[in-house]
């Protein structure tokens, strides 16, 4: 079976969905002739032509509205926002229109659109190209928020997202694009909006998503050395949240750590932490632990970025404290 890097896996998903359904189109800056600044849409314009792989002027706001508008008429656009930071120019159309029109129109219109959002720190791109904005969208009614951590998931979750009838904010971590390749079994099937247990363990449940899953697994390795066994859960979707999977894990471990790259303050991990502190109050054997980014802009330079966002070391340290509790 062929192996796919993360970026290639997304491309394969786009390719397969475009082949299967003529209503799937790609729109965004540099998605066509260049094939995407992260190569995700490479060569697709040759295969599907400029009417389906559409290079856009630098007009994120109108683009988002145009795509959402087309979606109400049955098109399934996949819009690339080159860096997720630029989505701020499209917030009005995404939140005030795309996320709400199904509701506002009493169900007359729906917006089957995917917005691809390369995000996260770690690539030396500076404060305006490195944010993790997923928490904003996870809070917003009307949106689905996807955040894959592996090539297979990226593939299946993209295909699934394209087929949903609601706007999906699809967060792709830039650091993952060219990581280790993975086989994708095309017969394996859709993920079904659920979480995945990436590693089984009995002492602490670590919940994370996206790039933080790999770091959490590294931290779990270190914790194993310390004599603690961690269960690592990959949420995959930040909305809807598959809390059943977390609950099952907590039954075993009674200790919860949530690891996320977004700003710790009120991020999506706070939702899970708060939920656990409410719904599993009696079961918890240790403080609910969050490891998120500090509430500062993302600087450039590896040592500075690492001081701001979670790392295997900082995850290890926080979870070890919890494990020992």
């Amino acid at each position: 079976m062929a192996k796919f890097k993360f970026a290639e896996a997304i491309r394969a998903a786009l390719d397969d969905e475009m082949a299967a359904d003529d209503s799937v189109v790609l729109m965004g800056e540099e998605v066509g002739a260049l094939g995407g600044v992260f190569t995700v849409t490479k060569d697709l314009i040759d295969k599907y032509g400029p009417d389906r792989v559409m290079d856009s002027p630098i007009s994120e706001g109108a683009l988002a509205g145009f795509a959402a508008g087309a979606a109400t008429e049955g098109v399934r656009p996949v819009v690339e926002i080159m860096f997720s930071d630029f989505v701020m120019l499209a917030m009005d159309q995404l939140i005030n229109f795309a996320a709400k029109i199904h509701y506002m129109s009493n169900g007359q219109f729906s917006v089957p659109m995917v917005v691809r959002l390369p995000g996260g720190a770690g690539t030396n791109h500076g404060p305006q190209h490195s944010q993790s904005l997923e928490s904003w969208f996870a809070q917003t009614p009307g949106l689905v928020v996807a955040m894959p951590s592996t090539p297979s998931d990226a593939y299946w979750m993209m295909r699934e997202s394209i087929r949903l009838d609601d706007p999906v904010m699809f967060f792709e971590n830039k650091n993952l694009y060219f990581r280790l390749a993975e086989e994708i079994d095309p017969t394996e099937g859709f993920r079904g909006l659920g979480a995945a247990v990436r590693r089984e363990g009995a002492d602490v449940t670590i919940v994370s998503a996206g790039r933080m899953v790999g770091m959490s697994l590294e931290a779990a390795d270190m914790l194993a050395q310390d004599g603690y066994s961690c269960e690592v859960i990959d949420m995959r979707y930040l909305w809807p949240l598959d809390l059943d999977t977390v609950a099952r894990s907590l039954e075993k471990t009674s200790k919860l750590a949530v690891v996320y790259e977004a700003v710790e303050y009120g991020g999506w991990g706070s939702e899970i932490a708060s939920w656990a502190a409410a719904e599993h109050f009696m079961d918890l054997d240790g403080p609910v632990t969050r490891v998120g980014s500090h509430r500062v802009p993302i600087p450039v330079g590896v040592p500075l970025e690492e001081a701001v966002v979670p790392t295997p070391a900082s995850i290890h340290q926080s979870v070890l404290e919890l494990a020992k509790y």
Partner: protein
Amino acid sequence: MSTTPQQLLELYRLMVLTRSVETAIERAHRAGRIAGSFHSSLGQESCAAGVCAALRPSDVVTSNHRGHGHALSKGVSAAAVIAELYKRTHGTSGGRGASMHLHDRASGFYGETAIVAGGVPWAAGVAWAKKRTGSDDIAVSFGGDGAFANGTFAETIRLAKFWEAPCLFVCENNGWAHSMPVERIFGPPGSITEVVRAMGVRAECVDGRDVAAVYEATQELVTHVRGGQPAFLECVVYRVRAHSINDADYRYRGKTDGADWLDSNDPIAAVRHKLDELMAGHAAAVDDDVTRIVAEAVARAEAGQSPTPEDAFKTVYASEGLEWHGQVQVR
């Protein structure tokens, strides 16, 4: 293209219908039967009527906060419009949207939006989507002069040109964006048209007091747009009423400015005069018809049902499995 008497009568009907519906809503508001905002298009019904009369049922319209005329002229029933303002379940949006949130897909009236210029890209996207299926249906977005200050408007025009979306952008220049006189931002009527022309898009400016002129100008542009390119129409009208029903417009213009303008410029009065010459009695019959329809619509709205608290949780998501949820969906 010149307007036939029969066509003129239809334009008259659309205008009178809008005026009558809006007058009824205004009355209900003042009587405390309706709460919320309400933006009257009194005196500028000609723009909605003239443009929509040049469209097909399968063409699509998006609108702004001042959209009752657009909806009614595109064929949405008076009953559904009035009921929505009353927040009734038989309103266009199930009574859950009310003012600024009329939507009626079946009439091709995709809807109002409460965000200035918010509906402009929607129309362009729909137009493009329709074209891609081989249809020569078009979409029309209605926006005000104020909306042109929102950068999204220009972005969308450029995008529509680039991607060849058959969209007609109508700019209803009614002299005001709330308390801001349009001249202060854009200059005299026609200035916005010049900007759009400089963008390489066909653009015309028409005197909106003359509904037949609006109709004819639109027909020409629609032909162009069906050919697969966007176009722009500035329609110069005047906002007779305050910006919204509770707006203290006396703070920024003369108390009688609106009424004075209407006295000598009412687009309905002008047509009525002509029709009575051309085909005596027809216009009066239209009046009667409209009066009856609106009275019935008000009665139905008054007697209508309100949505229940549970309805607040409906149609948040369209996808199977996500249709209903509380606050956090647990699988």
